[in-house]
């Protein structure tokens, strides 16, 4: 068993900022675990601009924003970065077990910062009935397929929900030559940022249907169409308003959920509704010495806010460790 002052789980914007901040606040023995083969997390697939406006007062792409922190952390030799490292277990005393190709390791830190990000809600979580053909993707998966893998998921797209990733993907699909036939939003307004509605949807003339819901997905092998209807204030469909949109692809963009299954394993109290830790103060959890920051603490609109709150988490963890001595 290895002992460490501080372990940080997650090498996305939250983990990077927290690690650097903890170092700057006097902690020198830091291990950062990242399950992917590179740092930067989800920012790597966010090749659009709009990052850093608040924090750097500049307009950056996601990879550029991440790169500023990656360069910085790589210069700090006392932060050990372990890639392809997947945490499988977390115990009450903060002992972590993680897998890496070739080995299974245990480490017990004095403080732990979880920066595990969030995942997208699925079609199943919002109970959209119908069939289960190929062609249904979370907006984030479609983004990865196009931007990282160079694969275009489909040619005629309907987007369920108007979350930011969905809005951004509406533009991305259009730029790749696909036709976005509509965005279906059950609420009367968008759940994304206004700037995304303007720049990604309205500027491209993409139809957006507020107060509408998808009643059913059709198609046996591949998506063929969706049935849509208008809803009343109680989100119930209004009879006679049903219509079909033919499409080969459905993107689901109905919200994000913090990824906190690991700390739940360690007995941290989680709010069942939001999947965030129950907390008296930002970044804190019910277990002393376990901190949560970034989108795993709560889902933020801007990466700039993730950075600022994660820096605070780094500082809080540093103070906690110093307080133990």
């Amino acid at each position, binding site marked *: 068993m290895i002992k460490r002052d501080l372990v940080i789980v997650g090498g996305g914007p939250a983990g990077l900022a927290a690690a650097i901040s903890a170092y700057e606040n006097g902690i020198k023995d830091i291990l950062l675990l990242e399950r992917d083969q590179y740092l930067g997390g989800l920012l790597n697939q966010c090749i659009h601009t709009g990052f850093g406006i608040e924090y750097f007062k500049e307009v950056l792409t996601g990879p550029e924003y991440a790169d500023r922190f990656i360069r910085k952390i790589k210069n700090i030799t006392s932060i050990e970065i372990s890639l392809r490292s997947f945490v499988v277990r977390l115990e009450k005393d903060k002992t972590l077990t993680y897998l890496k190709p070739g080995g299974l390791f245990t480490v017990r830190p004095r403080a732990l910062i979880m920066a595990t990000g969030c995942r997208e809600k699925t079609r199943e979580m919002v109970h959209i009935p119908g069939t289960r053909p190929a062609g249904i993707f979370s907006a984030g998966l479609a983004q990865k397929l196009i931007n990282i893998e160079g694969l275009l998921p489909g040619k005629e797209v309907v987007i369920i929900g108007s979350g930011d990733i969905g809005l951004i993907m509406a533009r991305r699909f259009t730029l790749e030559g696909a036709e976005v036939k509509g965005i279906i939003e059950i609420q009367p307004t968008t759940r994304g940022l206004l700037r995304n509605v303007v720049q990604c949807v309205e500027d491209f003339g993409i139809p957006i249907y507020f107060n509408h819901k998808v009643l059913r997905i059709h198609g046996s*092998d591949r998506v063929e169409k969706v049935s849509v209807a208008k809803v009343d204030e109680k989100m119930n469909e209004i009879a006679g308003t049903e219509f079909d949109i033919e499409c080969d692809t459905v993107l689901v963009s109905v919200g994000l959920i913090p990824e906190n299954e690991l700390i739940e394993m360690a007995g941290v109290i989680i709010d069942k509704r939001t999947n965030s830790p129950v907390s008296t103060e930002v970044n804190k959890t019910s277990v002393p010495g376990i901190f949560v920051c970034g989108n795993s603490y709560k889902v933020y609109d801007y990466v700039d806010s993730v950075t600022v709150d994660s820096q605070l988490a780094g500082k809080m963890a540093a103070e906690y460790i110093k307080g133990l001595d």
Partner: protein
Amino acid sequence: MNLYDIAIIGGGVVGTAIARELSRYRLTIVLFEKEAEVAFGVSKSNSGIIHPGTQNPPASLKGKLCVQGNILTRRLARELAVDFKEAGELIVAFSEEEAGRLIQLKKDAEALGVPRLKIVDKKWLRKNEPNLSGEAIAALYAPTAGIISPYRWVYDLAENAIQNGAEIRTGLEVKKILAKKPRFEIVTQKGAFGARFVINAAGLYADDVSAMSGIKNFKIKPRKGEEFLLDKKLEGLTKHLLFPLPSNISKGILVTRTSDGNPMIGPTAEDVDDKTDLSTTSEGFRKVLEGAHKLVPSINENDVIAYFAGLRPVAGEDFIIRHEDEAPGFINVAGIQSPGLTAAPAIALMVAGILRDHGLLLKKKAVFRKHRKKEYHLFAIPIAKTKKLIKKDASYGDIVCRCEMVSAKEVREAIARGATTMDGIKFRTRAQAGRCHGSFCTTRLMKILAQETGLSRLAVTKRGKGSELVKTGRVSD
């Protein structure tokens, strides 16, 4: 033209169980499955319950085969290294009138030979099934009910049949069956095959296949069932499989669980006309929730993490398993609805008997490999064991699916064992079956599948031709 002693049409649990049983004899066997992989038809949507035999008419063939099948499945599962969990079932009564019906149910089941049945009272239920509704007043307890993974079961039956020399040809649809005495000629889209005996285990399409050889004495009517899976966090929700009292057409809405530990609620039972209608509905969801609430009031609709629909191939009340004298050598195994999964090994024995009765010599092979080597799933083993595996092979430490903890090694092994599609990988390994439904691991799985099969990523499908995941890509693909 390739010639065989036996041609089996249909790669579901029935067809593969027959193939495996017959593979112990000196016979040449071929099995045709029209889908990309075995288990992709009726079997994949099965609820995975190995029934004790409690809810069948006493004189029925399906009742008899179910009771035999329950015993045979245990032995076969050990031989094939498939997880079988004995969970026990409770058929729950909510009124005095229902409690009275339990007595008749118990008598009927005992007449069929179902062992160790017991009627239990409210006090017993409180103690042994604490989340069961307080309204329940009694139950019929059948301890021999069990759980198995229906698709892994079919895959392993198929794999062992192949090890013993059977040929399994997937993606081949039978178009015509010509009687050219003394053999049949089976015409597929990829050529014709000759066989002395044809066994029709074509599930929903058994009536169409039967008609190809001139036998039109039954019709398959699909009966749809919608099932809803709950979060694995609720694994301990119930100890037993919970049933209401059965109706005429189904066993009702149940609270069970999968062999991987997710509680499952359902199924509905609705007669439909379309043999391809696998859609779930909001009415189905409401019905299932209502039925499940009656048994376990604490179930919350927000705990539902996945759902699917399946079709039962119904041909009247009972199974049809017979040699068709008007087409000598043609055996129908049709209408295998519930409890078909349980009965399958018994059906296979019965079919072997029919073959013998019709002149086929069943001579045992000198070497029959009845055991299959178990594959490891990281999600299902203790961490100390994982450590040993990684020492042996580093790629066990390369996690592909984070929600269900599936390694690259397991994915490659699944492909080596016959997975050719994304669903095939999911059913075998659980990769994509967790909370994120494949959002994080799909691209990696596509790459591994492409690498291992030599296909382009553009050719990677969800479940066979027509279900390609992506439409276009870079020229290099």
